């Protein structure tokens, strides 16, 4: 028997309190181990969709469409179990790093999972090694560079050992080196990945499949090179054909 899809979203709708429709009936499924790029112009509903994947939105789960994670329907009752499986990396690292030191921040997730003592320490150290910052445990978040903050955020999520990782704009505000390093890091992580981004080159390099969202609905879902090669489609939805696809033999 095939394993259930890592994520299955059916007819998901969401309206903000001011009446703005953010998602107007979104359906897709993501298989275990897939790396999927989520594209769309500003305000297309990407971040709102990501917040639905581990139940931060909506306020009443299941009211408008369904989200299934590894086969389990997301509901108020299994919110905790779902959040163990889906790790969310936010766009602004300052939102995610709220503890006085890096070690305490990375330890937050494991502690919430009920772990104590040496197991927490072990996970913190392993996560920091994984993101290439093994000696950063006693550093204060506000003294880190933007790229380092991003990596600590990732360590904080990796320490919870989720099977699905969801990224909101992981390379925004990073310098080329920071981008390159973060991309290499993403490539190494074996989990199922959903990456919402405007960084089309990152999508071409890391994701086999993309989903394009515009005004809260999916306008394209398919192989990255096919979707991104369709220039009229890209331009119609506030995107563009990435430079890398103009070169048949990238230099």
């Amino acid at each position, binding site marked *: 028997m095939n394993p259930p899809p890592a994520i299955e979203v059916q007819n998901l709708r969401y309206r903000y309190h001011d009446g703005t429709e953010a998602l107007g009936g979104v359906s897709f499924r993501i298989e275990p181990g897939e790396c999927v790029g989520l594209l769309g112009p500003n305000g297309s509903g990407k971040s709102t969709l990501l917040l639905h994947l581990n139940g931060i939105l909506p306020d009443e789960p299941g009211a408008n469409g369904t989200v299934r994670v590894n086969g389990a329907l997301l509901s108020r009752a299994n919110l905790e179990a779902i*959040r163990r499986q889906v790790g969310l990396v936010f766009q602004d690292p300052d939102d995610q790093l709220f503890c*006085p030191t890096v070690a*305490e921040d990375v330890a*937050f997730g494991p502690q*919430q999972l009920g772990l104590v003592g040496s197991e927490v320490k072990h996970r913190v150290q392993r996560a920091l090694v994984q993101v290439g910052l093994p000696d950063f445990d006693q550093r204060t978040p506000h003294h880190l560079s933007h790229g380092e903050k991003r990596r600590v955020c990732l360590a904080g999520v990796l320490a919870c050992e989720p099977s699905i990782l969801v990224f909101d704009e992981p390379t925004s505000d990073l310098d080329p080196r920071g981008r390159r390093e973060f991309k290499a890091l993403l490539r190494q992580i074996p989990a199922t990945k959903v990456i919402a981004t405007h960084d089309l080159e990152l999508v071409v390099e890391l994701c086999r499949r993309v989903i394009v969202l515009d005004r809260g609905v999916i306008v394209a879902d398919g192989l990255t090179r096919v979707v991104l090669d369709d220039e009229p489609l890209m331009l119609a939805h506030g995107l563009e054909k990435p430079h890398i696809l103009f070169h048949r033999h990238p230099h």
Partner: protein
Amino acid sequence: MKLHLLEPHHGRLNTVIQRTPAELKLGGGLVIITLTVMLPAPATVWLWCATAILGLVVLLSRLPLLFLLQRLLLLAPFVLGVTLVNAFQPAYRAHWCWLVARSVLCLLTVLLVSNTTPFSEVLRVLRRVRVPTLLITTLALMHRYLFVLVEEAERMRRARAGRTFTARRRWQWPVLAGVAGQLFIRASERAERIYAAMCARGLK
């Protein structure tokens, strides 16, 4: 806002004071402040004793004098401003001097403790003496986001300054009020996002 005045000094120095356990520094600081505040005026002997102790700590900690003076001057108006009126009344002048001495000693104690002890250590001691968790969390978050908020205010100030072509005071006040309001809205929106990030990592 001068962000560097909020920054602690520890980390670069490694003297006997920096290495002293946080429990001892916090406990000692508390004793000095309590005695300075509680002893009835004029407790001259104690004032000299406290000055000697703090002077010794300043020397041993190798904190630059200018660094401490700047911060003392920044903090002093909060305490002394309230009692400033006494300075101009001859009958209360001695009382004013007593207040200045006490306030400077207390502020210096706080400055010395906070600049020789990492904040995470302070929180650890508070946790150990069973201060309510909610209070510790509030302190930790306040310390963490103080810098983020100041940076945000600084960015807004620069953006405003970049488009301020005439310096008419009459116009400045409403703009300043707007900036304060904006900062409040941004802070509350950030609080929502932080809470979402906490929930995403399994906050119960």
